[in-house]
């Protein structure tokens, strides 16, 4: 049988297997190779909380979805065109994500009686049982073929079986017309030093997988995805957590202040601390603290001592940091707090994504305690968001909360590498001269920005005390009612003034109409795709996306007032919608919410937009 090559605009592939099967690596390799090939792409790892859940069970299934295409790839995709299921449990957990036209590739060797039972199948026809028997089924004895491929390699059977993900990857490369050279180079680089003996066997398995797919006569169609024509320049792949760490390092360079990160490991934020720990050559100091509170408190100490101070965490950790956040507000010290949100409350579902910490970020402290809040909208955008968060913190002498999401932190995308010469210098308001009476006044404010000066210990003559107790402008303790009211108002006004320094909201579409679709944070790509889809059907909608949440951009009220209805889409029960309503009570707000620990599907957003119109 001769296979037919079909031109496809975009395809979604989901690799699924046991958490020890190497699916994250397989998926990443496929993604990286596609990026170099010139496709647009977006990825989403979907893994269990357990490091190694019982083998073969549904709870131990690890998945990696990658969406590649010639244009308009804004999300990892809703449903997949190819599901790779390395065992029955992977099929059980993921069959529901298959399109009606999907191919399902399984390792038949794993579908023995024991495996089927472990996955919870009741019949001996897993496809029929899951209602996917009409999909294109590719049933291949992958384990056996891998063993055969490597029988002369001299490797032991355990090591050989570990290579079956490479066999599968080879098959996927055939189906999607991917050249193998990139993976060859990767294998050569990765194992050159420590395990040069595994390079050739892996290459062989990969090639054998590719050739098997070409020869097996079961694959009727293969697909060609034309490379897109992205902007010229140097590209790389980057995850949100990596981009966050690098954005902070960029702010350190542009401010001339050493970076200090005090953090406690927590999923899904740990990657930022790990990344910063690598880059000591840029002067970054990381302190893995004894707990979340020590994470932020060491950072506050470092800030007082003149560093660009950062603490990174996720929702439960942010709860523990609340009191110390108040201290940073009171002491008016710069600090960046990164919250990579996950499904809550409490421990919740640590590996799943949500936007449910917005209220906590805005309000989760005692007293009148304003903290600016910014949010990243894509993995690579975490770089700019972290840079901007640090710039605001340092120039306005305030803690700043940066909201990221598990979906962004672990997700990756190709990124046109920027040049640091295009980023602004960060200029903190250092105290340089003493007033006539010779006494530094730590809370005397700039009349325009209301920002106090920053005197760093070690500066002769600027000795002063800060702390959690209310003080007057001179830095002297005060419980005077009028002074307290004044200081509360000034701290709030200082944060409000930041709106003069941030970009205006960018309106996508006409300034007036029936419906404005609003989002913030990591839902950016899904909402953009949904709006484009609706427009393609001839409907008129406008769209805005908030990167700056508190304070909101100056033109927010003006934009909202141009629409009959405002549809706010977010992965919580309506926290941003309620916040907007508080600021602009005359807006007719419609909420579209999802709290399942999963990103939006473009299809459900399309339905919501049509319903709102």
């Amino acid at each position, binding site marked *: 049988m001769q296979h037919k090559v079909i031109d496809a605009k975009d395809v979604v592939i989901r690799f699924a297997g046991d958490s020890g099967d190497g699916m994250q690596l397989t998926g990443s390799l496929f993604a990286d190779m596609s*990026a*170099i090939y*010139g496709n647009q792409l977006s990825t989403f790892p979907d893994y269990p909380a357990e490091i190694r859940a019982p083998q073969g069970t549904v709870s131990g299934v690890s998945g990696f979805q990658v969406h590649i295409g010639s244009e308009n790839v804004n999300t990892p995709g809703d449903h997949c065109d190819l599901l790779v299921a390395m065992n029955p449990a992977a099929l059980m957990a993921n069959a529901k994500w298959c399109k009606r036209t999907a191919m399902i590739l399984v390792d038949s060797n794993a579908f023995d009686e024991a495996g089927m039972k472990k996955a919870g199948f009741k019949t001996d026809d897993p496809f029929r049982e899951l209602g996917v028997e009409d999909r294109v089924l590719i049933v291949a004895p992958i384990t056996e073929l891998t063993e055969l491929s490597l029988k002369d390699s001299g490797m032991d059977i355990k090591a050989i079986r570990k290579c079956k993900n490479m066999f599968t990857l080879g098959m996927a490369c055939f189906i999607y017309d991917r050249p193998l050279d990139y993976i060859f180079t*990767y294998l050569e680089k990765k194992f050159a030093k420590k395990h040069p003996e595994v390079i050739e066997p892996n290459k062989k398995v990969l090639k054998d997988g590719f050739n098997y797919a070409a020869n097996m006569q079961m694959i009727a169609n293969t697909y060609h995805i034309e490379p897109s024509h*992205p*902007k*010229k*320049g*140097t*590209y*790389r*792949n980057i995850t949100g957590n990596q981009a966050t760490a*690098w954005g902070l*390092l960029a702010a350190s*360079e542009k401010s001339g202040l*050493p970076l200090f990160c*005090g953090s406690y490991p927590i999923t899904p934020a740990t990657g930022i601390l790990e990344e910063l720990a690598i*880059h*000591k*050559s*840029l*002067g*970054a*100091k990381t*302190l893995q*603290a*004894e*707990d979340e*509170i*020590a994470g932020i*408190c*060491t950072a*506050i*100490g*470092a*800030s*007082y*001592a*003149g*560093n660009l*101070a950062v603490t990174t965490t996720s929702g439960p950790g942010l709860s523990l940091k609340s009191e*110390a956040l108040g*201290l940073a507000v009171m*002491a008016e010290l710069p600090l960046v707090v990164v919250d990579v949100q996950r499904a809550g409350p409490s421990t919740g579902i640590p590996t799943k994504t949500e936007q449910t910490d917005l209220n906590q970020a805005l309000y989760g402290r005692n007293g009148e305690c304003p903290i600016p809040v910014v949010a990243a909208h894509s993995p690579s955008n975490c770089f700019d968001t972290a840079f901007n968060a640090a710039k605001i913190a340092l120039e306005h002498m305030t803690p700043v909360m940066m909201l990221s999401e598990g979906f962004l932190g672990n997700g990756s995308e190709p990124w046109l*590498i920027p*040049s*640091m010469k295009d980023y602004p210098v960060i200029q903190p308001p250092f105290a340089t001269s003493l007033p006539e009476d010779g006494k530094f006044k730590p809370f005397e404010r700039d009349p325009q920005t209301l920002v106090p000066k920053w005197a760093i*210990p*070690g500066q*002769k*003559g*600027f*000795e002063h*005390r*800060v*702390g*959690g*107790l209310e003080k007057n402008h001179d830095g*002297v*303790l005060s419980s005077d009612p009028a002074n307290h009211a004044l200081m509360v108002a000034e701290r709030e006004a200082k944060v409000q003034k930041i709106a003069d320094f941030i970009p205006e909201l960018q309106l996508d579409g006409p300034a007036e109409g029936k419906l404005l679709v609003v989002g913030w944070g990591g839902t950016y790509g899904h909402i953009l795709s949904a709006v484009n889809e609706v427009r393609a059907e001839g409907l008129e909608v406008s769209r805005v996306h908030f990167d700056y949440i508190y304070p909101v951009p100056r033109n927010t009220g003006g934009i909202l007032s141009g629409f009959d209805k405002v549809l706010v889409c977010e992965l919580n029960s309506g926290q941003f919608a309620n916040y907007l309503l508080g600021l602009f009570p005359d807006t007719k707000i419609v909420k579209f919410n999802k709290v399942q620990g999963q990103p939006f599907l473009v299809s459900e957003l399309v339905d919501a937009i049509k319903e709102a119109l």
Partner: protein
Amino acid sequence: MATLSFKDFKSDQEVRWCPGCGDHAVLAALQRALPKVSSALNYEKERYVVVSGIGCSSRLPYYMDTYGFHSIHGRATAISTGIKVANPWLTVWQACGDGDALAIGGNHFIHAIRRNIDINIILFNNQIYGLTKGQYSPTSKFGAITKTSPYGTVEHPFNPGSLVLGAKGTFFARSLDVELKLNEEIMTAAALHDGASVMEMLTNCVIFNDGAHRNISDPATRADRTIILRHGEKMIFGKDRDKGLVLDGLGLKVVTIGQDGYTEDDILVHDAHCENAGIHMMLADMKYPDFPVALGVIRDVKDVTYDDGVRDQVKDVMLKSKIHSVDDLLHSGSTWEVE
């Protein structure tokens, strides 16, 4: 460099501790010790940062004319840690109470000691919560009757000395608030020690726990009920300097010189620099009436410090790495060109 004096460290703020509170004397000792430390180490005044948590003693930074940070309950040790790691050139002093350091801040306290960060912690131990008006603390004696233990506590207290040594502390000293001279001496030694120095000051709370330490602080009997340890000196005490400590099997024993065949030669010599903390632990654990309570520098040993470690690692990696700017970083690893 101009010589600094007591007055240079006094701020213009009115001291608001109760009359008779032991904290006054500790503050005075610190203000007298720092000029000496400054001339010994050639430190300018702007190099000092005084950090505190919450509690009566945590008001101390306001009374010092230095950089100061009055933080939140229990967290002083974490704040101090951040300051020292961020800028090891600064010299950090910390004031904290027994509730602040050992209850709500216990975790930070033990970890700072474990890491051996070069900070100087003055632990004001009055065995009571004073600022909240009289509840028992983690150092209150078993059975202590307080507002929250009207029938007596049913929990064992911490002995700060054993806690510090258990966490592999490199410096521990103990004193009484009224021992002004000794306190200056201890604070100076703590400043010279490179690593986490804990100075337990047994202070009197005149309002809520008056006389908590009277059995050892009373001038009439103090010399017989306490022993001041100094490195290299015999462990001799008593009004008549006739009592001493000897090793008896695996423990310590109090003997009278000239009785039971003991001579001055039998008395132990204090070795604060001894790596093995065994004898330091025994000394720190001595309780009246079986033993005199040990005052002075009980342990002072050298070990690598966390702040030096962090600084040196950064320097080392800077020398070895190929990445020296963010532009280098952005282009590191796997990249590709689009023409």
